[in-house]
């Protein structure tokens, strides 16, 4: 387990767009939620058959709303079940556990101007950041790219937060964000934040670096959904367990299923929290994370079990 868990009830389900649903959650013990910071995410524990599936989702509501937390979920057709369960099985009134918020995508409060960019469902952390900036009276603008007009979820809420400072890019109209011009000529003290698909994030980071932006001003969030893969065997040296990771579970999930406590925060290959030491690997490590450096990968000594796997053979971990 990671941070403290809370039991919540699904109070309301709203269909926002084809394949995008919003869930409003309240605590079952009647207490207030803690206040969180813009950009935070929670991890939902979803009851898929006899096992629990933990998926991270960004909180998108007002960070100071202590009664209701909201998340929006896009149905991932190729997912191993988490988002599909939320779209097909979840009902209002159901109770689930969530882990308290963690922020890996925080605003820099010393910034003098903030450029927020969202691609598709990446709007969710951007929305809570925009709310926080609006409350602080900060100077910010939002650039929001989506597939077609009906996919522009939350545009009214955004418009209300920053009238005239929301820019739309609709793919079906062949509009797209030109990062080199978006990032050029910005005053000192500007911060850039992006959440969206991998290719879009990479394009923006490259444009920023080419213009001389320092890393401290380029912020991105990108969660990878764990992909399945071939089954492989695992041995844990400290806890003395030996088991097989089935094709539809991540390594982290399989470890948790053994009752072994493993650390995590993002469950999406981004934060580095879940890093485990590889004692031995008879097979090829398939790294899917965004965290390890090329040298670390090459060393074969580390793995991020939330998204990465072994191809063939047996993996021995120090856990």
């Amino acid at each position, binding site marked *: 387990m990671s941070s403290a868990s809370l039991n919540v009830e699904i109070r309301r389900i709203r269909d926002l767009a084809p394949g995008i649903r919003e869930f409003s959650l309240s605590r079952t013990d009647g207490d207030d939620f803690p206040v969180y910071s813009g950009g935070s995410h929670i991890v939902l524990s979803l009851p898929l058959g006899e096992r629990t599936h933990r998926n991270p989702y960004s909180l998108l509501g007002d960070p100071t709303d202590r009664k209701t937390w909201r998340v929006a979920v896009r149905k991932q057709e190729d997912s191993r079940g988490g988002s599909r369960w939320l779209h097909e099985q979840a009902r209002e009134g159901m109770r689930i556990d969530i882990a308290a918020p963690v922020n890996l995508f925080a605003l820099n409060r*010393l*910034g003098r101007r903030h450029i927020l960019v969202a691609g598709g469902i990446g709007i969710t952390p951007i929305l809570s950041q925009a709310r926080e900036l609006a409350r602080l009276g900060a100077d910010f603008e939002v650039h929001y790219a989506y597939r077609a007009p009906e996919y522009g979820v939350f545009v009214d809420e955004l418009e209300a937060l920053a009238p005239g400072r929301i820019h739309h890019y609709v793919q079906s109209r062949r509009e797209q964000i030109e990062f080199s011009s978006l990032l050029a000529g*910005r005053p*000192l003290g500007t911060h850039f934040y992006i959440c969206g698909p991998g290719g879009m994030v990479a394009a923006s980071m490259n444009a920023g670096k080419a*213009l*001389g932006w320092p*890393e401290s*001003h380029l912020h991105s969030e990108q969660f990878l959904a764990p992909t399945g893969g071939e089954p492989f065997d695992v041995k844990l040296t400290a806890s003395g367990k030996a088991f097989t990771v089935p094709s539809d579970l991540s390594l982290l999930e399989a470890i948790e299923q053994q009752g072994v406590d493993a650390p995590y925060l993002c469950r999406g290959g981004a934060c580095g929290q879940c890093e485990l030491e590889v004692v031995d690997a008879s097979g090829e490590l398939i790294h899917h994370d965004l965290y390890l450096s090329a040298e670390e990968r090459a060393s074969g000594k580390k793995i991020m079990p939330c998204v990465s796997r072994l191809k063939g053979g047996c993996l021995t971990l120090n856990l």
Partner: protein
Amino acid sequence: MSTPAIKSQPIYAELEWDRTGTHHILFVSAEDAALAQRLLSNPPGGTLTVVHLRPADDSRSAWSQNLPDTALYLETHTLAEALEVLRDAFYVAQMGTRIYLAGAEDAIWQASQLADTFGVSRDEIRHAQLGTKARPVFCVHCRTITRGVHTNIVSCSGCGRSLFVRDHFSRRLGAYMGFQIDAEVPGEVPAAEVVYP
């Protein structure tokens, strides 16, 4: 996130251009012919603005010679004027700018505080100590900063207490901490020695 204060003396690395930047602002307030030669003979790509604080005599300075043709050279004669010019430079500066502050600690840390107000982060700024080692000293009792201190003990320009000058440096204040030396036995003040030439 706030910038934590450096708890001890700053360590200054050899000043080098950060060539990942696309604009460069150099503030310099002391002579160092070798450094000037090394930096200016191999300037970074992109624009370069030099804000030079120099004495008002007509002596030649290594910082005004060998400047690349494209550099914008701004000459100033007092620290106040230099900081004003620097403020203007920051005001029009764009993301991609790297800032280099070279000179006495008093000057470069005042310039650094100015950069902080523009939201400049640590990976955008470099500091180098040149010339006098005199320290700005912050009196922890009356909060006055006494400038140009060469000795290990100094009388505070605000409250007159005898302050012992510590190595603890606050980046936020741009000064070293000074504590009353005769707090235990009033009047017992050892002789001050010049330790910061």
